[in-house]
């Protein structure tokens, strides 16, 4: 580490005795029009500290870190860095002061190599060769192995995250912000990341760790600041709290328990997939390979896996947004449907909820009634001889609103004006009200507040109890453990043998998510379950 001092002086800038926080915000406020995203937030980050930022979606976590990283200008309040008040002109100034950030959504170019991607993110005073060498060295030092010459599209999500982390570390930050870093990792990959973070902490750096996984925070973090509705609720030591007490602070009340009705009966197969293989639709997409499973009425089947392992492709093949060559690869209610359009599949009794709420599940700038028509036009009596029955579409909106507690400002607003949780409740409600025989749902509670998530999970359980077959794709293992009867894992376009929910420990699922296979006896055990 010749030229680059890795070990930091824990008392920077000559403030030897007087301990002062590395970063401090005082009354930080950010307004968007009438909406206050951050309301007078005070936070202190000390060197050698892993500081958790907890909160539900929309609590203001992203706004706060964007202000600290210089991506947005606060409307009021102060940011102090190493004891001096600063105003950041942008992320490059933040980086030059020693603030680094790893985003949840990576900004990488698929067709460039690892080294080229890193070079694009740096300020570029050293030669490409020196930079590559340094990249390799940093990645080795921290146990984040990376081959600088590989192109990004060949890498797994975990490896892509490594690029972002190494890119941030190459600037030798004193303070590193990580936005939900474990959301895309297997449990084992997450464990490796924690070792790296502990090491960064030991070097005297500070880390701001955004998450909503409470167990993780209790295990890793020294301090936790909890935000709710744009305000700071509390700063506490998470190790002295229980997961339940942290959840209460985040939600501001008790979270409803989801209850499965006992004695759900398994009946006839309603969704069968037979040896489904499908070439990727676009460059660097995932090829589906020999996927087979059978889903009976009354059953919830969970598909786990790290994002980008073919879940989107499987959803498209099941929904009919992409057609299979062989009609027999997908059977809905016993009828070969591989060649049928999404509308025809809906007429057979299937319903679909995609991962992306805005732009896929709904047209964002259209009214809810029009979005009810979007999936209801085929089979819900909303269209007579080509003419739209507006009253019928509004009835669907009203029923979904009532049954699933959708909160909105007026009777029929634009989809984009609803919060994530309320829009998701509407979308799930819209499909469930059609009484589907088969419901295929992708990431049902992604980015949804705890209250809405409980409503949605309960709705899925109730639908299964009523006899429907429910297929849930999720990256949230806790969610699958809560509602699924069987769980399989998707990896590189292949689906593992299903495990019964009782046998599907985090460790086993984690191994499958990382591409390892289980011992033969375990699979045999699972198959017999």
């Amino acid at each position, binding site marked *: 580490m010749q030229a680059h001092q890795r070990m930091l002086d824990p008392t920077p*800038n000559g403030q030897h005795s007087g301990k002062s926080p590395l970063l401090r915000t005082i009354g930080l406020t950010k307004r*968007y*029009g009438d*909406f206050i995203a951050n309301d007078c937030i005070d936070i202190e980050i000390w060197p050698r500290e892993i500081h958790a930022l907890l909160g539900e979606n929309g609590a203001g976590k992203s706004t706060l870190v964007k202000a600290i990283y210089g991506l947005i*200008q606060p*409307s*009021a309040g*102060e940011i102090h*860095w*190493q*004891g*001096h*008040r*600063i*105003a950041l*002109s942008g992320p490059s100034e933040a980086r030059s*002061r020693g603030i680094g950030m790893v985003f949840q959504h990576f900004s990488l170019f698929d067709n460039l190599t690892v080294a080229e991607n890193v070079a694009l993110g740096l300020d570029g005073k050293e030669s490409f060769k020196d930079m590559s060498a340094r990249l390799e060295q940093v990645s080795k030092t921290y146990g984040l192995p990376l081959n600088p010459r590989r192109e990004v599209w060949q890498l797994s999500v975990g490896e892509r995250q490594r690029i972002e982390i190494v890119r941030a570390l190459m600037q030798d930050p004193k303070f590193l912000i990580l936005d939900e870093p474990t959301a895309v990792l297997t449990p084992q990959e997450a464990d490796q990341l924690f070792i790296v973070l502990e090491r960064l902490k030991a070097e005297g750096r500070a880390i701001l760790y955004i998450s909503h996984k409470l167990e993780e925070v209790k295990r890793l973090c020294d301090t936790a600041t909890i935000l709710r509705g744009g305000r700071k609720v509390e700063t506490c030591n998470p190790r002295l709290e229980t997961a339940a007490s942290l959840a209460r602070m985040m939600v501001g009340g008790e979270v409803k328990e989801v209850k499965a009705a006992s004695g759900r009966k398994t009946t006839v197969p309603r969704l069968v997939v037979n040896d489904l293989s499908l070439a990727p639709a676009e460059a660097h997409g995932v090829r589906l390979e020999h996927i087979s499973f059978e889903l009976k009425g009354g059953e919830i089947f969970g598909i786990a896996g790290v994002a980008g392992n073919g879940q989107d492709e499987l959803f498209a093949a099941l*929904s*009919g*947004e992409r057609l299979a060559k062989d009609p027999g690869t997908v059977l809905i209610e016993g009828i070969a449907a591989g060649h049928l*359009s*999404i*509308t025809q599949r*809906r007429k057979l009794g299937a319903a*679909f909820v*995609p991962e*992306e709420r805005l*732009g*896929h*599940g*709904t*047209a*964002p*700038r*259209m009214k809810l009634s*029009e979005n009810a*028509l*979007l*999936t209801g*036009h*085929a089979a819900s009596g909303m*269209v007579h001889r*080509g*003419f*739209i029955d507006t009253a019928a579409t509004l009835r669907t909106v009203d029923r979904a609103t009532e049954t699933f507690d959708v909160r909105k400002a007026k009777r029929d*607003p*634009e989809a*984009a*004006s609803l919060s994530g949780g309320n829009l998701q409740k509407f979308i799930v409600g819209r499909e469930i009200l059609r009484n589907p025989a088969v419901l295929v749902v992708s990431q049902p509670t992604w980015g949804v507040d705890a209250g809405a998530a409980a409503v949605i999970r309960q709705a899925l359980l109730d639908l299964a109890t009523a006899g429907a077959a429910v297929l849930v794709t999720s990256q949230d293992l806790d969610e699958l453990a809560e509602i699924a009867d069987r769980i399989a894992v998707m990896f590189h376009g292949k689906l593992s043998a299903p495990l019964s929910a009782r046998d599907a420990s985090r460790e086993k699922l984690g191994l499958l998510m990382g591409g390892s296979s289980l011992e033969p006896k375990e699979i045999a055990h699972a198959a017999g379950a």
Partner: protein
Amino acid sequence: MQLVLEKRAERSDTIALVSPLIAIGLTIVTMVILFAILGKNPLLALHAYFIAPLTDGYSLQEIAVKATPLVMIAIGLSLCYLANAWNIGAEGQFLIGAVAGSWIAVKTQGTDAGAWVLPAMLGLAAASGALYALIPAICKVKFGASEILTSLMLVYVADLFLDYLVRGPWRDPHGFNFPTTAEFDPVATVPLLIEGGRLHLGSIIALLVVAAAAILLGRTIKGFEIRVVGAAPRAARFGGFNANQLIILTFAVSGALAGLAGIIEVAGPVGHLQPGISPGYGFTAIIVAFLGRLNPLGILIAGLFLALTFIGGEQAQIAMKIPLDVTKVFQGILLFYVLACDSLILYRFRLEFPNRQVARGAG
């Protein structure tokens, strides 16, 4: 203090209505400056453009006559644009419609062909316009060729084809070598609504087209399909709607309407086929479509307004020697402002007063 452009939570219906008026206002301000630079009295020029044409019956009829093709073409274009299909070649489809319809008129000239001639001309013109519009649509769907470029290039093909016909095979033998066909027979002419006036049956057809489009877009599942494919393509596919089929359909409909407008113009106000039958109706209709908010009723109003600028431009040229090209400048500026003002439907301006300046460079 700084001016911030921020996203609205929900689209503003008020601005959606007012935006064209703001755009017209800004255009007029710009034109006043332009007239002043040209050394013309801006007030007199504005009077010639916008007031004088409204003061006599002949001009009023002429506005309706000019608005007829604009509205018909713009309705078709609005269907394309709503579905995210960019037909820029309505001018070409207009000319092909005019040529195809004229073929029947030329071939039946001087014969005792009966009342079937005009309906046949209208039908053939619409079919030809549709077919001509299908060329870029199919190239788009099959090969991914940009429909903007192909539809635009086909305008010049149509223009030169018409030119060839009236200078060659279809030239009127008694026409003193002018590049024009003979005057169409009465059975091949669009009837007038007022004896001795200018208003013709085409204007009624244009009104019917507006009404049909309003019902299509507001009440039918096909209209919903058109809107959702344009507004959210991925959601539309999820809804089971096929974007490629809609590109074909909307191009065909807009081509048919442009072709119909073409033959109505030739068999109506012009009376024979000749080069220069269109002062750029197919292009001006793009402005009409956007100024009218891609909404049938809005297009009707916008069409009348732009027709006014054509008539006003002619009057300003006669009265004040302002070049006719200034009309095109006016229309271009107007489109620019309309598109700019439209951003205010989804965004709004706000003045932001950040707290006092903070010392930089600390730390």
